[in-house]
Every structure is written in structure tokens, then in C-alpha cells.
């Protein structure tokens, strides 16, 4: 009889034990990853790949092994062993260089190639950015794509990503950089350039910079000096000329190869420069773009100096407070069909009432002035009236009064004047007729265009 009890006890324990085991297993089954790699971290994944053993060693020696094993997500562009045979010995010997080199291959976040449309620029842990496409990184083809890991992805590349300086560093310290242009770009104009043109230290963007030999630079600056004539201050003239030369020789588009270069570039300021490809001496790849070292490069003055358009309604001041008589009008241009906005001052009762426009950085050239002024039967008026442009003063002798014709939508010549000096700032006036009669002394203007005359 006791046997039965024993049997029962054993039986019960078997059920209990079996149940506990069963209970564990159900979760193991449910939580198991379908592909083994999905449960491995990047370090384990790299270490397990015989083709990446060299990179695994570099990860260990650079201290980045812990990083790629950590609980953040990364994309590792791992060069194959073969790619790393060509690694310059200075990198492996210099701990800080090695760190930068390895960090350059690790990107925060997971980038699957299938998600990438076009080119995206993504930062590596080194702070450098790379251009990613769905097949390449910085134009290096990915040989094995989207290898799965728990904390990110692995992309195998057949070539190591080089250690590159950025364009600003090239300008500042590279031996190939011509001295005169360097002096300008990284000297007194450095902060101006950063602010108004591009910050060439910015790794997240790509720039194409053109630099020219000292002689060519000298010639170009000399060429522009007359336009920036500061009487009695030769240095200032040269500096302003240098600035105006330098600002138009960089674009924030990447033209990585000569073949990809267009024959003309257009600067941020709309200035076109023809690129004579024959004059290219060297193409230097930087981490945020490319630098073309040219024998010479020229920007034509007629490209450099473009028309100055002054929107008349954006005046900086008026001779008298006549806001009650000032109308900012939205009008339809009967010739183009477009909408424009102009200014009309009517029945202000002041002889030679004027509006003032403050212009800046005006080169010393002769200008021809045009306006578009619509005298469209203002307040039932059927006559024309006169107004004039004043240079430096509202009643400057030239240009003289010009008649504003009735219902004329086209531009009208308003006279010409010459500046003999470069003008950092400069006042232009739009002056009414010397009368207090409402139908005679109106001012109307859409815009004033100053056309340089060479």
C-alpha cells in the first residue's frame, strides 16, 4: 500500500517539476529571436565575422569595442581585412588618430540602405559627416548590406573611410593653400566670411571652394580695386576688393570631381563665375567638401556688379510726416499681369517733399537710374507730374526732374549719376515737384533700378 503513496508523491513532483520547466520554456520559445544575429550586439557580430577580424582588433585597440556593444544604436561601416591592409601605419601608431579613424566608421542610429533615398549626410562618432546613399558611403560601395545586430546595423565596405580635414582646416593650414587667399580667408575676413558666406568648419554640409594662385589672386584684386575706391586709403580699397573677390568663389554644393563641375558657378550672392577647367591644378577632397586649386580664375565686373533694385515703398525716411497722405498700394501690372506694391504720396502740401532710401556697399561706378512709376489717374487726376531722384541730397543737381507719364507700366529712364568713391552707406532720394499743389507734387514709385554702366 505504501508503494502507492510513494508512487503518487513521485508522480506529483514530476507534474510540478515538469510544469515549472514547461513554464520557463514557453517564454523562451516566445522571446527567441528568429535570426540569431538579431540577438547579437554589433561587437559580437563583427567579432563573429572572419572578414572583419582586423576591424574588430581596431575596435578593441581604439576603445570603441564597448561603444558598439552598448545599448545605443549604431551603424558600423566596417572595412574588410583587405581594405585595412592599406591603412597608413601612422594611424595605427597614433592613439588619437586611430580613435578618430575608427570613430569615423561608426554612425549614431541605424541606417538601412533601403530607407535611404538619394544622398543623406550623417555624422559619425568622430564628428565627421559622411554622404550615404543606398549603395555607398562617401562613394565607397557597400559590399555586404544591412547585416542585422541587436543594437544596430553593420555595413561592410571594401575600402576604409579616409581621415580627412575639413575645408576650413585646409584653408588655415594646408601647404597647398595659396598664401594670399589664405591670408584673406583665415585672416581679417575670417569672421565676416563665416557670417555672411559660409562657415567652412561646418561638417554637416558640403562646400566647393575655389582657390587661386597668388599671382592670379593679386591680379583679380587689382582689377577690382577701382570699384572699391576709398580715397587716401589703399589698404582699405584692397581689403574691400579682396572680400568682394573671395565671397563669390565658394558654393555650398558638392562637385566632387572635375567632371561633375559645371562650366559656371553661381555664388550665394548671385554672381556667376566661369570655371576654366583647364586651369585646375589640383582637386583636394576635404571632410566637408572639395577644394579646387586653380591656376587662375576671373569673375567679370559685369557679373560681379549687378543691378541695384530699390523697392520704393521700403523707404527709410520722409522729409515730413505725411503718413496720412502716404499710400502703399497693391496694383496689378497690366502688362505682366503680376501684382506689385508701390508707394504714393498725394496732397502732402510740401514743396519738394521727399522719401529717403539708405543703400549700403555701393561700388564706385556710373549708374543709370530707371523707375517704374504708375500715374494712374490718381484721385481723378488726368495730368502728368514731375519727380526726381536725388543723390546724397534731395535736391542734388543731377539727375533732373523727369515726368511721370499717365498709366505707364513700363520702366522709365530717370537720369544718371556717377559715384567716384566706394560708398559703405549712401542716401538716395525720391523728391516731389517744387510745388504745394496736390495735382502737381505727387510722388509715385514702384521701384528704382540702378544699372551699373561700364
Amino acid at each position, binding site marked *: 500500500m505504501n508503494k502507492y503513496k510513494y508512487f503518487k508523491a513521485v508522480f506529483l513532483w514530476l*507534474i510540478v517539476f*515538469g510544469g515549472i520547466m514547461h513554464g520557463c520554456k514557453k517564454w523562451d520559445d516566445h522571446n527567441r529571436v528568429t535570426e540569431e544575429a538579431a540577438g547579437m550586439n554589433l561587437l559580437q557580430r563583427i567579432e563573429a565575422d572572419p572578414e572583419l577580424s582586423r576591424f574588430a582588433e581596431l575596435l578593441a585597440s581604439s576603445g570603441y569595442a564597448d561603444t558598439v556593444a552598448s*545599448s545605443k544604436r549604431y551603424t558600423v561601416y566596417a572595412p574588410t581585412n583587405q581594405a585595412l591592409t592599406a591603412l597608413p601605419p601612422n594611424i595605427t601608431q597614433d592613439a588619437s588618430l586611430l580613435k578618430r579613424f575608427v570613430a569615423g566608421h561608426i554612425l549614431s542610429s541605424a541606417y538601412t540602405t533601403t530607407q535611404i533615398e538619394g544622398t543623406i549626410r550623417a*555624422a559619425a562618432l568622430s564628428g565627421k559627416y559622411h554622404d550615404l546613399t543606398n549603395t555607398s558611403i562617401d562613394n565607397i560601395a557597400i559590399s555586404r548590406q*544591412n547585416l542585422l545586430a541587436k543594437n544596430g546595423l553593420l555595413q561592410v565596405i571594401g575600402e576604409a573611410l579616409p581621415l580627412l580635414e575639413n575645408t576650413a582646416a585646409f584653408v588655415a593650414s594646408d601647404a597647398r593653400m595659396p598664401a594670399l587667399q589664405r591670408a584673406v580667408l583665415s585672416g581679417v575676413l575670417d569672421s565676416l566670411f563665416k557670417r555672411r558666406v559660409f562657415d567652412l568648419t561646418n561638417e554637416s554640409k558640403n562646400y566647393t571652394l575655389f582657390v587661386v594662385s597668388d599671382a592670379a589672386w593679386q591680379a583679380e584684386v587689382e582689377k577690382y580695386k577701382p570699384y572699391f575706391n576709398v580715397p587716401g586709403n589703399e589698404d582699405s580699397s584692397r581689403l574691400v576688393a579682396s572680400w568682394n573677390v573671395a565671397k563669390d568663389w565658394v558654393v555650398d554644393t558638392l562637385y566632387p570631381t572635375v567632371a561633375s563641375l559645371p562650366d559656371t558657378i553661381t555664388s550665394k550672392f548671385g554672381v556667376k563665375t566661369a570655371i576654366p577647367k583647364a586651369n585646375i591644378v589640383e582637386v583636394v577632397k576635404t571632410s566637408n567638401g572639395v577644394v579646387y586649386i586653380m591656376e587662375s580664375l576671373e569673375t567679370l565686373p559685369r557679373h560681379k556688379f549687378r543691378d541695384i533694385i530699390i523697392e520704393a515703398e521700403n523707404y527709410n525716411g520722409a522729409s515730413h510726416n505725411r503718413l496720412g497722405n502716404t499710400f502703399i498700394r497693391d496694383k496689378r501690372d497690366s502688362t505682366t499681369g503680376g501684382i506689385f506694391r508701390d508707394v504714393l504720396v498725394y496732397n502732402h502740401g510740401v514743396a519738394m517733399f521727399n522719401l529717403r532710401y539708405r543703400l549700403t556697399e555701393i561700388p564706385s561706378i556710373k549708374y543709370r537710374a530707371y523707375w517704374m512709376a504708375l500715374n494712374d489717374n490718381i484721385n481723378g487726376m488726368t495730368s502728368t507730374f514731375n519727380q526726381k531722384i536725388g543723390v546724397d541730397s534731395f535736391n542734388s543737381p543731377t539727375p533732373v526732374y523727369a515726368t511721370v507719364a499717365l498709366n505707364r507700366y513700363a520702366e522709365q529712364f530717370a537720369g544718371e549719376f556717377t559715384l567716384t568713391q566706394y560708398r559703405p552707406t549712401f542716401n538716395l532720394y525720391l523728391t516731389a515737384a517744387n510745388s504745394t499743389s496736390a495735382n502737381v507734387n505727387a510722388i509715385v514709385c514702384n521701384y528704382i533700378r540702378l544699372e551699373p554702366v561700364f
Partner: protein
Amino acid sequence: MTKMYIRLTSVLSVALFLSTVVLGQQITTIGAKAAPTGMDTIVVTGTVKDAATGKPIDGSRISVQDFSAAISDSLGNFWIKVPFLNAAIFVEADGYNRQIVPVNFRNRIEVLLLADMTHTFDDLLVMPLGQQYQRYTSAAVGQYRGQGWQQPLETIDALLQGQVAGLNAIRRSGAPGAGANLFLNGINSLYATNQPLIVVDGMPFDASEYGQSLIANNYTNPLSLIDVKDIDNVTVLKDAASIYGAKGANGAIIITTVNAGGQQATKIDAGIYAGMNFAPQQLPVLNAVDYRIHLNRMLSSSGMTAEQIAGLPYMIDDLSRTDYFRYHNNTDWQGKVLDNSVNQNVYLRITGGDNIATYGLTVGYMKNSGVIKNTDIERYNTRFNADFNFSERLKGMANLSFTYNDQNVKDQGIADKTAPLFNALVKAPLFHERELAADGTASPNLEAVDILGISNPVAITDKIEAYNKYYRFFGSFKFQYDISKYFTACTMVGIQFDKYRETFYVPSEGIVMDTLWNDIANNRMGSQVKQLFSLFNDTRLEYNRVFNYQHSVKARLGFRFQNNKANQVYVTTANSATDDLVSVQNGLAGLRQVGGDMGEWSWINNYLGAAYGFKDKIFLDLNMALDGSSRFGVKAANGLTIAGHQFPLFPSIGAAWLVSSEKFMSNSAVDLFKLRASYSVAGNDDIGNYAARQLYVGQNLLGAEGSVRKGISNPELQWETVYKINGGIDLAFFHNRLGLSFDVFSNRTKNMLVYRPMESITGFGSVLTNGGELQNNGFEANLNFRVLNGQQLKWDFGANIATYKNKILAVPQDAIYTNYANATIVTAVGQPANQFYGYKTNGVFATDAEAAASGLTKINTDGSVSAFEAGDIRFVDNGDKIIDEDDRTVIGDANPDFFGGVSNRLTWKGFELNALVTFSVGNDVYNYVRYRLESQSGVQNQLQSVMNSWQVEGQQTTMPKAAWGDPMGNNRFSDRWIEDGSYLRLRSLNLTYNFPVKSNGVFKSIAVLLTGNNLFTATKYLGYDPEFSVTSSPLVQGIDTGLTPVSKNVVLGVRLGL
């Protein structure tokens, strides 16, 4: 008016009653003619032996009811006169089970008595109208003898699990005292109750919750007011409950509590218990390392750039930062809210009396803590039951009980901001529960809501106050007067009075702010009072007579009356000035919401119960009830119209034939062979107190207060009617060592309550009608077998199993769609009532090419179309290439294929080992918790399985990609979340050792009890536990919303007899 219909129905019932009595008289005449002459001369001899040892039993009592009696001698021999050769002899002896032996034309009978059987057909059952031997019933019944001493922490509803074939007791949750939802023989109703009527000591025990708790998904279980040790006997009546009329549709559970059992000697039992509740095994959520990877995936999918993600404080691994320690932890949040806890119980029970009065008195105290920290239930209970013999003819009975419960609870289930368990699962392990200094030192202050917007689970368990105090007086007096030898009149008057007070306070500290309709609540508070007063009267005339020792007639004619008044008042408000001001008067007056409910309803039940037995082998039962209820609509059909009110008639008939008492079976090895059949009609009056009336509700319009109609009245609204057919066989073999019962049943509910959708032009969404119909067909089997019957070692094996097939026959528009917890449940004609209705899936697209080849798309809310891509779920499409609602199909069924229990009882010397195994097979479960923990659509922590989520082209996996906000609906209600909820559980295991005591010692008995519950569960279900029942509605069974899981506990106790 009430009086009038009482009178009318009484007249009707009296007529029926008299006809039964007259019928009985006629039988007498027939019987007298047929009676054999010289009945005194029939003598039967026999021996009574112990079945285990074969030794004769000295002093066993042998009797023929109302005829003769004898006592066996030292050799076990007896002789006794019998009126007929087919009479039944009762054989009883101390320490043995009663045996009823049909003489069956034998002169000599050998009786083998079994000791200490768990169940035999000769057991005495407590039936609605008095006690009856199971052998003689025509009804399908199950019996449970109280094992409360072994299970001091349980409630009776949970304790019945696995004990009675066909009773599907599904425990609501693992919260202390939560109890179980009971479904007897399948589903009888969609919107009315499915709970069997619970009758305690002759009076209906109101076991339903009126008005919801203010604390999310807490069920206040009135049955937790009953100490299970008070319970002596439970009879589960599956059919023939017509006697309870409009409350009998779901059968009845008849509970009798402590009484002296006719013993006048004072008997004192004391029990002291203490035990442990064990926190459940944790769900495998992500640890800090994996969670951060997962969070990174999530944030990437939300469109954040690598730089933005890297700049988040929990992504910056810089020890020098002052907030480093705040964001770099690996906290086991489940461990912070789940904890092992203790339970204790003391209990004293005294029975005794003299020939004038016997009594049973109990007092008890229990405290049971939950596995969720700071939850517990404390109970103080007392009960006094007494039987008085005032005179020879007048007897009195008193059953009085008073219980006070004091419960600390927490939000459970779907309460994203405040449920401790849910928050522990989704809370990022990166955070800490305390504020941490720059050097990592923990401050005593709790951490606030984290930057991901999730509450601090420890603030929830420690700072949210939510408790209730609940008491009930349940008492009745009964007087019984014997008018003559055959007629008895009795009346019972009882009341139950409940008061339930509930209070909660949700602080601002560490808890996500709640959005009210008119404000943001940084803290919230509320309280509620619910009361129930119920008056009950049961008055009846009883007639008992045996004619000529062959025809037994029993008849009961009476009426029951119940009047109930319930009311509920609640106040909630928010934004008290500080977390120290926790009561409702401190909240802002403008945010105060005051509400409540009042209900009054009456029930009248005129009943007639008649039983006829012929020669102890053919039994006929007739029960009927004519019911009136204040709830029925005045134009209800199918009832008798009396004084403008509707009185449905609920009849039932039953018949049983004890084939084994027939002559041709006299020498058979079959000890008992009984055929049973019953047909009954019963009603369900749970149709709402005022649903049949035209109601108006308060309405505010531009500052003016007025009343508007609340829906369309349906004066034809009536009870649900359940038609039950039951057929059964009872068998006993091997000198009653093996007992078997089989039952088949077919239940059909007509006039079933349904919401009929209305045309929008009416201005109302739906109207409650009786337009539904469903049926349940099923089968049940019960087995009791004494496997070993040694002198010392005894093994009783019991098993029960039941199955039912539920089918909807009619619902409006042929289908009802119920939405709950992001699931859709379909109730359609021709199908089971509650099926999960969602999308079928077929894995995950590994590549974009695969997804493109499938051509599947989804239409967004703005009308644009999105194509499924690699990493999305491949939903099964109906052919139109668009994944939309038309692709849904039945994906699961929460009804089990079969369920039941297996019990084992081993006794050896002083030891007794009880093991109950319960099982439920084939029931599907919607794992809402896993849906939340694998949806990968936000910052919530997830299960470890999300590490397998799709990431790269070509990756083979079953887990879709992490996608912020789930734009493609990969997490829609689909078979991804449906699991097999089958389980086999070692429900309870008890070891008792009875110390040998000296007969003259201080202690009459000393027993040590060790009980374990839920010790082992075999299931494939991926959750804490496969058993839960979020509401009593059959439509939302099988949905795991994350209630406190049922967990293991162990109790050690000592029972002393003084």
C-alpha cells in the same frame, strides 16, 4: 394592488396544491387495495461489514423509514421486518457512510459499509424545499461538502471551482476576496445575469454588485462576507429551479451554514492560521540595456534624428552630469509593486444545545494581503444559527450573521495612469523610484512622473489611497408549526442590510495627471456610499405523507416576497491644494461631480412543489411558480394578467426511475442505476428595475436645467425565459465504491434581452427588447471512485468534466458587435455567443518586394492610401487588396471545449492529503496585456520578444517593425493576440495531520493543516495567469486586461477541538 395579486395567485396555487393532495388520497385508495396481506411477516436478514476489512460491524443501525428498525449484533448480523420485498433499508453506523439498500426481493442482504467517502448517492442533499436523498431526486444536482477548514482564505464561489460538473467558476482576479464569476451549464443570457441564484439558509443572498466601484476594475464581492468555514453544505441545482420562478433561470446554489446537526453536546472548534501569498512569476519585460535599444528604435521611427536622440538625457552616458543617476538605472518595477504577503485567520465555532434549543455560533477574523503592495482585505465575522423547539408543534429557527470587511485596493486592469501592475510593466527600467542626487544617493522623496510621461509605480502603490468598508447583516427567523401529522405551516422573515463605503485619493506626486472634461486634474479624490435593504418573506404550507409504505407524497405550497431598496451616492472631485488634503471637501467645487442611483424592486413568487415517490423506485416531481415583479413591463406577453400586471408561470416536471430497485436487477452487480429526466421553465428577472418604464433624465441646456426622455420605453419588456431539458443516468458499482453520473442538457433562452438598434431619426441609439434567443447543449459527467480502500490507506478519486455548445438563435440584425479593450466580440446567429472577431495574420513581410507583390494597402482616415511594406504584418485579405473591416473574421472563442476538476483524497492513519486539479481546455484568450507589451508604438517598456522585431530587408521574424503610433495598424485586433487559454492547475493541495489525542484530554482533536493553492499551473498562455474574468458579462470573458493575477499561496493552520 400587491395584496390583490398575492390573493389571486394564492388561490390559483391552492387549487393546484389541493389537486395534488387529492391525487395523493386517490393513490392511497389504490395502494390500500393493492397492499399485500401480512406485511408484518416479511423479515429480511443480513450482515453489515466494513468494506475495507471485511470485519462485521457491531451496533450498526438498520431501519425502514417509518416502519421498523434494528441494530446489528457483534457479528454484524441483523434481522428486520420490511413492509414489502422492494422496500429500502437504511443502514447507518458511526464512522461510515449511510447506505440505502433496496431489499429487492431478497431474503438475505450483505451490506458493505464504506467509511469516510467523499460522495455517495445516499447523501442527503439540501434542496429548495427541504432535505432529500440524492438517490431519490429527479433533478441534476451537484454537491459540495464544506472544506472551509482547509481553505480559510477562499470565498465560496471560488471554492466551488472544479467541484461540480457543469459549474464553470472563473475567478475574477487574484485580488483578495475577488471570488469568481459563475456560469452554470453554459451561457443563458447576454445582458442579464448568468449567476445562479444563491440561497443561504433558505433566503436569497444578494451576491451582485450594485453600481460600479470608483476604483478601476475592482469587484466588491458580497460572497467575501461569508466565511467558508461557516458553510456546511452546498447544493448546486442545475435544473428544476422553476421553484425560484423568475430568479431560477441560471439554477441555484443552496448554501447551509453552521448548525448543531442535532447534536446537543457542546462542540468547540478553534482554528488559527497563518500563511504566505507568493508574488507571481514576472513577465519577461526588457531590462535597461535592451529597453534603451528598443527606445532608440522607437524614437528613430518617430522621425527624430540621430542627433536629437543622442541628446536625450537617458542616452547620454556621462557620469559627470548631475542627472546621470536619474536616467541610468535598471529598476525591476514588477518587483517594486508585486510582493509576497502574509495572511492570517482565527476562527471559533461552537455548536451544542439541549432538547429545547441547539445552536451554532461562529466568530472569525481574517486578514489576507494581496500580492500587489498595500492591498488587503480584513474581515470580522460572526454568525449565530439556532433551532428552537418552542413546543411539540412549534419550532423556530434563527440564522443571523454580521460581517464587516475592510479592504485596501488599487486600480487594476485598464487604468493606464494608475494601475500599479500595468505601470510596472510599461515603466522604463532606466528610472528610479526615488529622487537621486548627483552622486546617486537616494532621497526619501518619490520620483515624479518621468520624462516619458509614465507614472511612478511606487507612488501608485504607496501614495494612492483606495479603500472600502463594507458590512452586511443577513438574518432571518423562521417559525414552523406542525398542524397535523401531515401538514406543516412555516414562515420565514429575513432582512439583509448592506452598507458599503468607498474612498479614494490619487495624489499629484509621481502620478500622471488626469484629464477631466473641464480641467486637468493633478490630484483626484472621491467617495461613494452604497446601501441595500432587502426584506424577504417565505410562507408555506407543507404536506408530507407516505401512503401504505409505497406512495410518498410531499407537497409545498407557498409564496415568497422580496422587497429591495438600493441606493448609491458618489462624489468625485479634483485638485485639492496639496497632497495632504485628501478628502472630497478639499477638492475644487467646480470640479465636483455628484451622482447616484436609487432602485426599488419587488418580487413575488407563488410556488408549488410536489414530489411523488412510488415504492422507492419511481419518482415524479412537479414544481411551478407564478411570479410577479415590479420590473416586468405592463404589456409583457406570455404571462397571466392579473390586475393589470403580468405573472409568468414557470413549471417544471421531473421523473426518475431507480432501475436498480426493480426485481430483474436484484442480483445485479450494479448497486444503483437511475434514469432521470426533467423539463423546466424558469425566468430571469435581471432586466433592470425601471427598464420597462418611460424615464426622464436631467439635462442642462445653456444653463437651464430640464428633463429629457431617456430612450424609448418598452412596456412589453419582460423576463427572459429559459427552457431546460435534462436527462441523466446515475450509476454505482462495487458496493458503491464507484459512482458515476452522466447528464445531457439542452437549454434554450427565449425572450432574451437584447439592444435593438434604432433608426437615427428617433434620436436614440437602441432600445432594450426581448428579441434574442440562444441555446446551450451540453454534457456532463461526474465520477467518484474509492480506488484504494485499505484498512489504513484510502484513496478517493473524483473527476468531473463538462462541455457545452452555445449557439445564438436570434439577435437583432443577426449579429451584435461588442467592443472591449480594443477587441471586437461578435455575437451572431448560428454561432457561439462570444467569439473574438478580428484580423487573421500570416507573418511579417520580410522584404519590400514581398510586400509589394502582395499589393496590400490600407486606407487612412484622411482617405489617403498606404501600402504595406517590409516589416509590416501580412494580414489575410478577402481579395480586394485593401485591409479593412471587411477582412475580419472569427479568430477565437472564449468558451472552453471542456472544463472540470479532478480530486484526490488520500488518508493514511492520521494523515489526509487532498489534491484538487482543475482544468479548462480549448478556451481562447485575448491577451490584452501582451497587446500592450508588444505593440511597439510608443515609449512603453515591452516584452523581451520585441528584440526580434523586423529591422532589415530580408529579416525573417514574426515580430513586426517598431513603428511610432502604429500607422499601418499592425497592432489591430488580430490573431496575434489570441492565445490558447487552456490550463491544468493544481488548484489546491492540502495535507492534514490529525494528532492522536487521549479521549479524556483537554483537546478532543488536534489537527495541523497545510494548504497550498494554485501551486502549479500548466499552460501555454503568455501571461501571469490564464484565469481572469473582468466582468460578469459573458461577452467579455477570456480578455486578459491585466487584473491582479491569481497567484500561489500557502496556509498553515491548527484546528483544535475542545
